[in-house]
């Protein structure tokens, strides 16, 4: 029996996704404008809720205000899910979302108070992506599509599409970590460049598997197109970000071209990770999930013995 569809909850979850995207943009603007420490105190800004909005303070304080709004919206969503959801795991997912955004608030404060040391900016950046993935997941789980009936799809390839989707999302997240490490000057750029190659490989592999194995599925086609499109955009933005950084390395202040490319690259990176999470969930919804790969392999070997070998 499918759980009831709450349109209002779903729309609120979508609204939270949009606000979180805005928060990601605001956060990226702080880093790209080198404004993270323009407000030395936390949680207030210059001892007040209304600091002088000049220079870097505009970016840092705006980021804090939007973060406060997202915190409140997430709390509302968590309470709403707890009261309205029949699915126990969804209630706890709402709690996890609130815990993540609360953790983000603490990390954000520590980032400022510790003067950007001890890996705080990287931790703050990575948890932001995880939180975004959670709210996107909640939006998907509360959707009419997720709660409707769907025919189950047969996965005839190896490794399973679930394994590929997990690998893809994992590699994308690792690339996010490497990108954050470079952006916050903790590591050189070469690991992030190598990571781009790894993401290219997993996105291509996952996209090819979705196309070959589930050619007739509208949802899988959409997932594949989104994954490829967002990755393509991200790859080009990465080239642009690198070029803009190199060509303005000696500038006395962050220049608009660098700010634009680096912010876009950061935010589209979050979208790519969210897309990777979405692919995992769509596969989970449509394709039977075997807990142990060996069982799946055993079934395929038995089927192959009856029907002949199958490809990817």
């Amino acid at each position: 029996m499918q759980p009831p569809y709450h349109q209002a909850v779903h729309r609120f979850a979508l609204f939270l996704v949009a606000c979180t995207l805005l928060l990601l943009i605001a956060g990226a603007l702080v880093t790209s404008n080198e404004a993270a420490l323009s407000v030395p105190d936390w949680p207030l800004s210059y001892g007040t809720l209304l600091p002088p909005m000049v220079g870097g303070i505009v970016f840092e304080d705006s980021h804090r205000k939007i973060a406060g709004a997202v915190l409140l919206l997430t709390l509302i969503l968590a309470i709403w899910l707890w009261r309205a959801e029949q699915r126990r795991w969804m209630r706890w997912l709402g709690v996890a979302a609130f815990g993540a955004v609360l953790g983000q608030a603490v990390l954000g404060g520590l980032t400022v108070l510790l003067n950007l040391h001890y890996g705080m900016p990287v931790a703050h950046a990575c948890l932001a992506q995880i939180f975004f993935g959670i709210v996107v997941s909640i939006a998907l789980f509360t959707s009419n599509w997720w709660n409707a009936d769907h025919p189950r799809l047969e996965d005839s390839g190896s490794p399973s599409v679930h394994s590929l989707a997990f690998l893809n999302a994992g590699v994308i997240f690792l690339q996010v970590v490497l990108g954050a490490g470079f952006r916050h000057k903790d590591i050189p750029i070469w690991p992030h460049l190598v990571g781009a190659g790894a993401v290219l490989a997993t996105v291509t592999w996952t996209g090819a598997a979705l196309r070959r194995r589930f050619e007739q599925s509208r949802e899988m086609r959409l997932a594949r197109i989104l994954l490829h499109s967002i990755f393509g955009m991200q790859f080009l933005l990465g080239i642009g970000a690198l070029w803009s950084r190199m060509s303005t390395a000696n500038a006395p202040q962050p220049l608009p071209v660098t700010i634009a490319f680096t912010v876009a690259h950061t935010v589209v990176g979050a979208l790519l990770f969210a897309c990777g999470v979405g692919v995992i969930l769509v596969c989970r919804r449509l394709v039977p999930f075997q807990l142990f790969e060996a069982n799946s392999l055993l079934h395929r070997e038995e089927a192959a013995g009856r029907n002949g070998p199958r490809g990817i």
Partner: protein
Amino acid sequence: MKARFWASLACLSGLALVLVSCGKKEESAENAQAGQPAATPIDMSTVGSVSGAVKLEGPAPKPKKINMGADQFCASVHPGGGATEEVVTDASGDLANVIVYVKEGLGNRTFDTPKTPVELDQKGCMYSPHIVTLMAGQTFDVKNADQTTHNIHPVPKNNREWNKSQAPGAPDISDTFAREEVAIPVQCQVHPWMKSYIAVFKHPYFAVTGAKGSFDIKNLPPGTYTLEAWHEKFGVSDQTVTIGAKEAKTVTFSFKPATGGD
């Protein structure tokens, strides 16, 4: 049970924040000075001096334009935009803002810390002076002459890092650096183009070149010294000089712009 768990987690998070807010307390200048040995006596009847100039050989990189539009006050002071102070030279190649100091040769001598504070001002959304030099434990006062807010953020490698805000008309921010370091970058994240450097020494034998690129280090005891000239863009240059009793020596340093320009 569950409520107690979440309450405990909230308390632990708050405790972590409070502990962090108290900041890292390194050895204070007062404590450092309390343990400091008495100054080594110097026979003033034998001291000499070293003076000279610092030159830039070759064409100077042009100052880069600064867009101050992010702050109306800064833009009003610099209607056409500001300019960087990385490389300041005149037509003769005299290089300003070079720190010249005795790097080696003083042995284990110790020196009294001056009581007069050194000033770093913020005027027209630029630091003034661009280079500050002082002794370890000597107070420096940060002033804000601007009608806008700044944050002052020294980023040392060998001293305590801090970041403080200063509103228009706010009192001076006074602080010290406990250890020698050449040189500590100072930043303002409200106005990211603002840059300054603070050089901290254990001795008083240092100078900063002015517009004419000249320096003069007085009251040096006789001896052989390594002099170092430090520039924020061109790096360092060392020379050895021997000063006899009551002798005045002249030294010239030169830097070359990097090939390929900016």
